[in-house]
């Protein structure tokens, strides 16, 4: 096998997840993919594979000692990719704003993120377009797409999103502020703050507030942190239109995001989605970043459906994995050759226009 080829990614199993089936006729069940076009289904599969290969590449970079820390999104592809496909992408108040947490790779891949830019971030290169080598993996920032900087402190993005939504509402072009975060983070007050700020009568904000519920907060289980049946029930209490979905099904995710985004653009009011997702490689490299085979793999699950529907051949599927594996390897090799931040740059951008921040020079 050439170094850039992925190992076999096509299951020999013939079974199709029962949840994926829709009844059609007395004896046959045909997966209609919620009425989505074949092109869209294949696009989502392709992007989900790309996101997965990239995240696995990031983990490899960590494991061979070329980076200090990994945190990312394997297991959230079936949620993140459809979300990214619904974004009105651009810079400025006429476009959607994204306030992602540190599992946003699939969304950004769907928006056009190049692997090399994620790898540059992972390898702390000066060429990293998000942070210039200053922050962790998946801490993206892309002003050209209104992607707000990802922060390590969880949940702060929820109230910041209220601010961009407030400005978008004033601007009047029906753009939406989208915020993502995990289930454990909803214990922070900022989550409640966002529900309050977004839902005030007559001052509602155009926000898609989402929670990716993987049922873990690092090592603490969902049951250990939550008394509510659904996190979405908290949004309902503020009269926010809410859905609980299987975020491991990209079709369900796509349709749910579409429904909520349409509602927000039409009414100017907030909407909420709680998406149940997997966490396939643990919280981060701090817990080993090893594959958890007990959870649903949304990429492989969807791939089985696409194969079973006859939308794509096994050879073509394997070629997609190989293509992205090749891209990941080449991007890693490129990043290795690129410069790292200099010690002299440590004061840069403390203030705008590099105004002096060093008190020794006042």
């Amino acid at each position, binding site marked *: 096998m050439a170094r850039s080829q992925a190992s076999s990614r096509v299951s020999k199993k013939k079974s199709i997840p029962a949840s994926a089936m829709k009844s059609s006729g007395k004896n046959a069940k045909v997966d209609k993919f919620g009425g989505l076009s074949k092109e869209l289904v294949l696009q989502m599969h392709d992007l989900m594979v790309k996101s997965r290969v990239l995240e696995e590449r990031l983990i490899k970079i960590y494991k061979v000692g070329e980076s200090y820390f990994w945190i990312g999104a394997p297991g959230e592809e079936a949620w993140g990719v459809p979300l990214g496909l619904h974004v009105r992408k651009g810079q400025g108040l006429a476009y959607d704003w994204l306030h992602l947490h540190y599992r946003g790779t699939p969304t950004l891949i769907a928006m056009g993120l190049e692997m090399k830019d994620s790898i540059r971030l992972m390898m702390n290169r000066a060429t990293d377009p998000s942070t210039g080598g200053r922050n962790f993996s998946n801490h993206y*920032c892309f002003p050209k797409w209104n992607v707000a900087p990802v922060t390590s402190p969880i949940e702060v993005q929820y109230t910041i999103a209220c601010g961009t939504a407030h400005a978008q509402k004033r601007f009047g072009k029906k753009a939406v502020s989208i915020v993502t975060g995990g289930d454990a983070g909803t214990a922070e007050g900022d989550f409640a*703050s966002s529900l309050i*700020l977004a839902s005030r009568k007559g001052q509602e904000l155009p926000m898609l507030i989402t929670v990716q519920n993987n049922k873990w907060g690092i090592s603490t289980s969902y049951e250990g942190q939550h008394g509510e049946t659904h996190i979405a029930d908290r949004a309902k209490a503020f009269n926010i239109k809410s859905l609980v979905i299987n975020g491991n099904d990209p079709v369900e995710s796509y349709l749910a995001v579409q429904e909520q985004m349409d509602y927000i653009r039409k009414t100017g009011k907030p909407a909420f989605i709680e998406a149940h997702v997997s966490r396939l490689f643990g919280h981060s490299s701090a817990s080993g970043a090893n594959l958890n085979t007990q959870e649903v793999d949304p990429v492989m699950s969807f791939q089985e459906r696409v194969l079973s529907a006859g939308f794509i051949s096994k050879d073509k599927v394997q070629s997609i994995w190989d293509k992205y594996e090749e891209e990941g390897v080449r991007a890693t090799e490129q990043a290795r050759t690129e410069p790292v931040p200099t010690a002299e740059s440590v004061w840069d951008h403390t203030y705008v226009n590099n105004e002096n921040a060093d008190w020794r020079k*006042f």
Partner: protein
Amino acid sequence: MATMSQAVRMALHYGEKHLEVKDIFGQDVGAPLGGVFTATQGLKTTWNSPLDERGIMGMAMGIAMTGDRCVAEIQFCDYIFNTIDLLKIAGNTHWCTNGQVQLPMVVMTPVGAGIRGSVYHSHSFDAWASRLPGWKIVMPSNSLDAYGLMLSAIKDPNPVLFMIPKALMRVRGEELIPGEPAEEKELKAMIDAPIGDRSKWKARWPELQEYLVPIGQGRITREGEQITVVSYGRHLLICNEVADQLREEGVSVEVIDLRSIYPYDWQLIKKSIQKTGRVLFVNEDTEVTNFGEHLAYRATQELFYELMARPQVLAGKNLPGIGLHASLEDASVPQKHEIESAIRSILAEVP
């Protein structure tokens, strides 16, 4: 002459009219109250937030992230502490994004003791604020500086923390703000909301002009030869009083109003210490890891061989809070006689 509260209000009006301020918000900032110190009465873009400091700070960051200008208020700095990580993030966003994202926002908050405000209306925040890299930190001691610093803060592309000494909110300035009517009664009739029903009231704003106090620039308020006293906020006024009193005894005290805590005007301080050889730093935040300690450290490091006495810091006692009874408050934060005493002791020191 305008009070500091009126000066801030006029600066915010100027900001709305000329500097593209689109939101002025916080708890009770909008109508009908217009701020618990009336600093936001009659303005066009004010609105009341929920009682949620983290929500206020997060929204300000989001608004600023889009490029819109806003001024957010935390009603008392005593309640800003639960936003400390948001303050950290606002300060590091430009740095963390390698210069990509700017947060042009102003957060204003009343600080300090002096109004018998008990434990949770008497905190200071200047020492804490000095540990927020990426923020600019200012504190005026008079109405004209409040106006000029607020305009500079609004224009600045970085987050700026505008601390207002609450004890000075109703203190009148000694200099007219450009465009301010000379008669106090006239100004009051124009921009102070009436008691009672305000539903139909609108402010009549004077034709204000731009006046900027550059951030990072201090000012000598009393010239002197024997000792330098560096302060800011309400204690600056007390230092001025002490200097005036001592001058009658033939003691020459130079007083510097720092005005900006970060970046600070080291060159002004340095030049003055080189002249006097003696220095006292005065503020009311708690004394352990006080901002004045940093200045005293720097004075010691850079000017050691030019000093005639040990630099001293006179600050608030390292107590959990300011007690309500006058005897407790007075024993907690620097008093006039303590400033005088500290000056005399430094002057008495023989190298």
